[in-house]
C-alpha cells in the first residue's frame, strides 16, 4: 500500500538519484575540504585541549606546554 503512495508522486524515480547525489556531494566536498586544510591550522586546532591549562607541578598527566 505504501507503494501506491509513492507511485502517486510524479517523477518519484528521480528522488533516490537526487538523494544519493546530494549525499555523495556532501561527503566528497567534506573530504576535499579536510584534505586541503592548512597544516599549521590543523595542528593549532588539534592542540587546543592539550594547551588549555596551566601546569600543575608534579602531576603525572599534566600537559607539557612546551609541546609546540
Amino acid at each position: 500500500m505504501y507503494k501506491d503512495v509513492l507511485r502517486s508522486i510524479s517523477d518519484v524515480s528521480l528522488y533516490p538519484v537526487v538523494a544519493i547525489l546530494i549525499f555523495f556531494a556532501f561527503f566528497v566536498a567534506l573530504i576535499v575540504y579536510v584534505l586541503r586544510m592548512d597544516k599549521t591550522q590543523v595542528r593549532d586546532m588539534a592542540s587546543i585541549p592539550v594547551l588549555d591549562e596551566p601546569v600543575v607541578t608534579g602531576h603525572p598527566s599534566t600537559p607539557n606546554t612546551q609541546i609546540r
Partner: protein
Amino acid sequence: MTLEPLTLNSPGTAAPQVDRFRYDNAIVRNFAIASVAWGLAGMLVGLIAALEMVMPSLFLWDGIPFLSFGRIRPLHTNAVIFAFVGNGIFMGVYYSLQRLVKAPMYSKALSNIHFWGWQLIILSALITLPLGITTSKEYAELEWPIDLAIAVVWVVFGLNMILTIMNRRERHLYVAIWFYIATWVTVAVLHIVNSMALPAGLFKSYSVFAGVQDALVQWWYGHNAVAFFLTTPYLGLMYYFMPKAANRPVFSYRLSIIHFWALIFIYIWAGPHHLLYSALPDWAQSLGTVFSVMLIAPSWGGMLNGLLTLRGAWDKVQSDHVLKFMVVAVTAYGMATFEGPMLSIKSFNAITHFTDWTIAHVHVGALGWNGFLTFGILYWLVPRMWRTEIFSAKLANVHFWLGTLGIIFYALPMYWAGWTQAAMWNEFGEDGRLVYGNFLDTVTQLIPMYWTRALGGTLYLAGVFVMVYNLVKTAYAGKFQAYEEAEAPALAKEEPAHNANGRREYWHRWIERRPLQMLFWSLILILIGGIVEMVPTFMVQSNIPTIASVKPYTPLELQGRDIYTREGCYTCHSQMVRPFRSETERYGEYSKAGEFVYDHPFQWGSKRTGPDLHRLGGKYPDSWHYNHMRDPRSMFEQSLMPSYPWLLKDKLDISTTPAKIRTMQALGVPYPAGYDELANEDLQKQAEKIAAGLRETGVENAVADREIIALIAYLQRLGTDIKAEPTK
C-alpha cells in the same frame, strides 16, 4: 600557583588585551558527585532486577508492587542513562567547555538551575517509576509534568552553553564542542517529538501517536537517545579527555571533522532497525538497515581516531590507570558499533531480536563505553580539581580489573542466552511441530546464564565502590579548588578573511567559528532523516489496511490496558508476532499494522523474557489469568514472572474513566459523542460479567471492582479483533 602564559591560536590579532577570569570547578564537582551517586543507585537497581529474574519468589520483592520487575527495570534504565551518564556528560562538558573556549560559564545561576533541576527530575523519576507512573515508552517513561521540566532544564543547559561559547576567547570551536552542540539540539528535538502526549490527568497521558506510528517515533527516539545521549556527548568527551590523558593531540583532526558530520547525519536514520519484521512498512525498515550498516564507517573512524591518539604512548597504557579505562572504553565502543550494524541486518536481526542478545549488546555499550570513559575521566579529574595525586593507583587498577571482568561475566552469558533462546524458539521437530512448544522450557534453560550475569553485575558494582573509596580518600588528601584562575587574550572583533598563510578560508572553517550556524546546520541534518522516515509513514496512516473489525477498547479494557502499562508488562512481553513460521506456530496469526490503530501508546515491546502476548486473547480461561497473576508459580513452578497479588486486592479507580475516554476521543478514537459519561456504566456491566464467570469457574472470592478484572478484560481482548466478523 603560577600561571603559564597561554598562547593564542587565532592569527591576525594585533596586541590583544589579556583578560583574567576564573573557571568554575564547583559545578563540575557537583555533577561528578551526582553522576557517581546516581550511578551506584542505578546499578544497584539493575542488580536487584537481575536477581529478581533468578529468584522471583524471594520474599524481599515478591508481591511488593514498588519492587516489581516491570516497575524497577525502567528505573534502572532511566537512572543509568539520564542520572549516571547524564550527570557524567554535564561534568565533562562543564569542565572542558570552559577551558576550550577560554571563558567561564556564562551564568553561575544557570549552571546551578541546571544542576538542581536535573537532580530534581531524577528524584521525581525515582519516586514516580516505582509507583507505576509511566508512559511505557522505553527510556521515555517519565510522565508529562516531568517531561516539561526536562524540556525547561535542557533549555537552561543549552542557553548556558551557547552563551558561554559566544563569550569565548578562542576563535576556533574545538571538535568536542561540535559534538556538544549537536547533542543538545538533537536531544531537544527527540524529546519534544517523542513526548507528545495528551494528559488524561496529572500523572497519566496518552501518546498522540498510535500503533505503527508510535512505534516508529518511539524507536526513532530510542535509537537516537543511544546516539545522541550515550554516544555523541561521550565522543566529545573522548576528543577532549583522551588527548589530555595521553598528553598529545588527537590522532587526526581532519578525521574528526568527517567523523562528526557523517555520524550525526547517518545516525538519525537508523531507528527503524528496532522494528525489523514488524508491522512497520518495509521501505522504512530497509532505510533503517541501510543507514545502520553505513554507520560502521563513522563509528569506527571515531574509535580509531581515539585509539590512535595513543600512538607512541602505548607503554603508558600499562602504567596509567586513566588510559587503561579509556582504552577499554573506546574498544567497547568499537565492539558495540560493529555489533550494531550487524544486528540491523534483517536475517541476523530475525535471530537476535527479542532475545538476551540485545541486553548483552547494550551493556557492552553502557558498562564498557559509558561506564569506563566516565571512570577514566573521574580518575583524571578528581586529583586535578583537588590539587593532589590519586590516593591509590593500585586500587584504581583493582577497579579496572573488577570492572573488566564484570563486563565479560555480564556480556558473554547474555550472548549465549540470546543464541540459546533463538535456537530453542525456532527449533522444529521431524513431525513439523515446535520442539519447545512450551515457552517456559526455553526460559528455564537460561537460569545459569542469568546467574552469571548477576555475578558480572556484582563485580562491576564492587569496582565502582572501590572507586568511590579511592576518590573520597583522594579528595580528603587534597584541597578542592572551586575556582581556577586563568587568563587569555580577548578575542579580536574582526576576523581575518585569510589565514596566516594567505590562503582563502573555506566554508567549513567559517562554520567552525559560529556556534549558532553550527547548531542550525546540525539541526537541519538530523531533521532530514527524521522527516523522510516519519512523514510518509504518517501519510500512509490513512492507507494502512484498515481492518473493519478492529474496534476501540471498551472502558474496562482501556483501564486494564493502563494497568498493563503501569506494571511494565512490556519490559518482558512483546505484542508483535513476526511473520515467521516459528512464531505463527507458537503464537498464532502474525501482527498486522491495522490492528494497532487505537493503541495509544503502542505496546510492541523489545524483549521476550516471557512469551509474546499479541494473540493471548481467548487462549486461556479468565480463571487461569486470575490465578496466574496472583501467583504464577502456582501454575508453573519454574516461572520467572513476578506475582501481582495487589491486583486482586486493589479497587479499580473508575473516577478516571471519563477523562480517559475524552482524551482518547481527542486523539481520534471513535467513541460516540457523550460516551465519557456513559462509559462507567458499560465498564461495571462488563466487570460484573467477568466476576460472575470467575465465581462460576471456581474463583469464589472474585469481586467485580478489583483491578484484576480490568486486566483480564484487556488480556482477553488482545489480538482477537481480526478473528471477529466485521460488523457493517
